[in-house]
């Protein structure tokens, strides 16, 4: 049984963690480029230089001494997001939807006074949320106002798009939809559902929920998930493709959100993107990679690569694609 399952997965081109680490991450992602993705401040800086849209940075806090500058940074804005520069998996992110008279209301409705705010910032600066517990910086940035396209199919929280970019080609994409069970988080382990998106068209596929079950309708809103067109699809793919030049990483995951006003914004990049995207798309990554490899050198610019990736996708990554 084990061997049969193995052969079937291999035939479908499913990528396992070991193969991802050994053949793709280690081979394509130079270690020296990791700080670009691990340090979100640096990511943002480079993204701006490469014309990849990101949420506006209001300021950053590097030492406990600077905490008191926070009110000046946000000026007269009522909402903002606090984000540790080295945070992983969304830890330590504080979304403030409203602030007045030194009191801050978080996205989940909790009210923080200045003391609590100070404590959170001190913790973040001392490295509680960073990889390895090293002292960290905190970014103060624009709070994304989500495009209403996902309102019907997400429960609170942050629906985000994850695009896998292989050697500059956007290969696979999914949207992670928070549910009540996942407590508004976009983490598939915690009950969020993931829906693949056809690269060629930008139309969502049926979602996959807990236990790999196919979920046609969002468990909380009841709205059908499949068949929705993601707006600004071409721009999303282009942004993702540009991240290749931005980071120099041959295998990366780009997290992109849709803002109602500014359109797609790149939130963060990941040098070790997870493999659940394969489940959401019901397809193996390596099957697609094999099609791209012989063509990888043909296209130069990000636009050419996106066109090529979409052409491949339109032909269903069939063997005769070349």
């Amino acid at each position, binding site marked *: 049984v084990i061997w049969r399952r193995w052969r*079937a997965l291999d035939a479908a081109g499913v990528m396992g963690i070991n193969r991802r680490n050994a053949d793709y991450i280690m081979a394509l992602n130079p270690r020296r480029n990791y700080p670009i993705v691990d340090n979100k401040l640096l990511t943002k800086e480079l993204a701006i230089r490469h014309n990849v849209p990101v949420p506006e940075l209001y300021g950053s806090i590097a030492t406990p001494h600077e905490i008191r500058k926070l009110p000046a940074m946000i000026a007269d804005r009522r909402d903002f997001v606090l984000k540790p520069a080295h945070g992983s998996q969304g830890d330590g992110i504080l979304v403030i939807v409203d602030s007045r008279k030194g009191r801050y209301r978080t996205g989940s409705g909790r009210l923080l006074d200045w003391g609590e705010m100070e404590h959170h910032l001190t*913790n973040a600066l001392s490295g509680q949320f960073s990889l390895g517990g090293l002292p960290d910086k905190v970014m103060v940035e624009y709070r994304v106002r989500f495009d209403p396209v996902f309102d019907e199919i997400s429960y609170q929280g942050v629906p985000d798009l994850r695009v896998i970019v292989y050697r500059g080609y956007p290969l696979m994409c999914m949207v992670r939809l928070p549910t009540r069970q996942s407590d508004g988080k976009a983490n598939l382990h915690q009950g969020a559902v993931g829906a693949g998106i056809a690269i060629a068209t930008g139309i969502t596929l049926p979602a*996959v929920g807990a236990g790999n079950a196919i979920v046609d309708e969002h468990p909380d809103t009841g709205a059908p998930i499949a068949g929705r067109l993601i707006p600004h699809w071409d721009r999303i793919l282009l942004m993702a493709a540009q991240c290749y030049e931005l980071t120099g990483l041959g295998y990366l995951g780009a997290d992109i959100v849709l803002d109602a006003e500014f359109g797609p914004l790149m939130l963060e990049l990941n040098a070790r993107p997870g493999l659940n995207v394969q489940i959401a798309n019901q397809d193996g990554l390596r099957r697609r990679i094999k099609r791209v490899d012989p063509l990888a050198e043909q296209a130069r610019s990000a636009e050419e690569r996106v066109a090529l990736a979409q052409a491949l996708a339109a032909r269903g990554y069939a063997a005769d694609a070349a």
Partner: protein
Amino acid sequence: VRLRHLLILVLSLVATGGGLFYYKWQVLGFPVEADRDAQTWTVEARIAFTRPQTGPAKVTMRLPAAPPGFIIFDEQFISRGFGLTQESGPDSRVATWAVRRIQGDQALYYRATLLRSREATPPPRNSPPFPPVPELEQPYEIALQELVARVRQESADIATFAAAAMRAVRGNDSGIRLLLGNEPEPIARAELVLKVLHSARIPAEIFQALRLIEDRHEAELEYWIMVHNGQEWLYFDPQDGSRGLPANLLVWSWNARPVLQLEGGRGEMLSFSTRHTIEDALRVAELKAKRQHPRIMEFSILDLPLKTQSMYSILLLVPLGAFLVVLLRNVIGISTFGTFMPVLVAMAFRETKLVSGLVLFTLIVALGLSIRFYLERLRLLLVPRLAAVLTVVVLLMVAVSIFSHRMGIEIGLSVSLFPMVIMTMAIERMSIVWEERGPGEAMKEGLGTLIAAAVIYMLMITPQVQYVLLVFPEVLLVLLAGILLLGRYTGYRMTELIRFKALAGGGK
């Protein structure tokens, strides 16, 4: 290119490690398997005498030297107040105890631990000259000649002559009575056998030996006869004339001279007690190897001081644990806290045994975790919080020990040996995972850690594994090769076969 490089490295590691292992095993004869019931004997000689008036005393005792079929690997002299000197010649050793002023009853002990060994053979001895025919006064001369004639009648060659001589001397006829008296000492009988043999100009000697019998006390040395047949020495039991050295016979002295000599005292007594013991197999193997290959053993772990050795016997298990972690994580796909925490936990289990270790670990981590969550509400900074958790862990361990002692459960006490830093790390890691990825993930990783630790522990405590690693540390090179190969393992993890099962139907 990189892959070929790796393969060459792996092959050379396997060749070096395997080759050394094979050489030590086949050529040098190191046993691969720990000898489970290596036969060892403990022999204790007790010397007792009395010194009625205060004054000096000197005791000289012959000690066994290279006895056939045995290896002496441990000796102790117990002699309070006496000075001890040892001399050793080619095939004899002498211990001398001396004291300047002493009075009253005295007891000295010599204790030797012997290992039965097929490899040890009797020392080669040159063929002796033909002995002169003993000259006796009449009527003994005639009695002896009659005896020799009778023995010659009953025998065909030197071996049968010797056997017949021993049988004849055990007889009770008038000739024997004349030569030995009515109640002969064993030494007198042996000397008579020697005289018979010498009369026939057969080289023969008396030697003294001890029969090793389980739990024997007040044993005495026996006089045995060895006879040279022109090519080799033959050994005879004078009791019944049977030939050959029994496996349980310890040759104490190669001549008939008294084993014990006393100056300045009286009433000397020498008695032996023998006891059969099963020594720790590893210790025996180590001593055996040291005996047989002293040169090589000088550069081996077994030559290190015992304390260092026992440290290495644990340390050598760490790579094995690490290899298992690699296997469990990268091939099976069990998720664990940290990379090598399971190894550390497994080492901790060595102190507590498995079941109680699992229970204690779960208990203390669970209690520590709830306190960690309470501390979280107090909003402490990272480092003080870690220090607080550490303190609480120590207190919990003390509490568990005291409580279980009150309850009369012994296992609780071993918790104090449980490395507390490992616990603190486990609690901190678990609480972070708990908050970041939810209780489910934390439980999963916690369980994975315990399973991995249990598997590693089970392997670590296997004596065979410990033995092989200590005697053949080069096996680690082969293990290293395995780890390097696993470093290039790009196949699926077993858990991924389940995770991606929906994709097994083939891609779209």
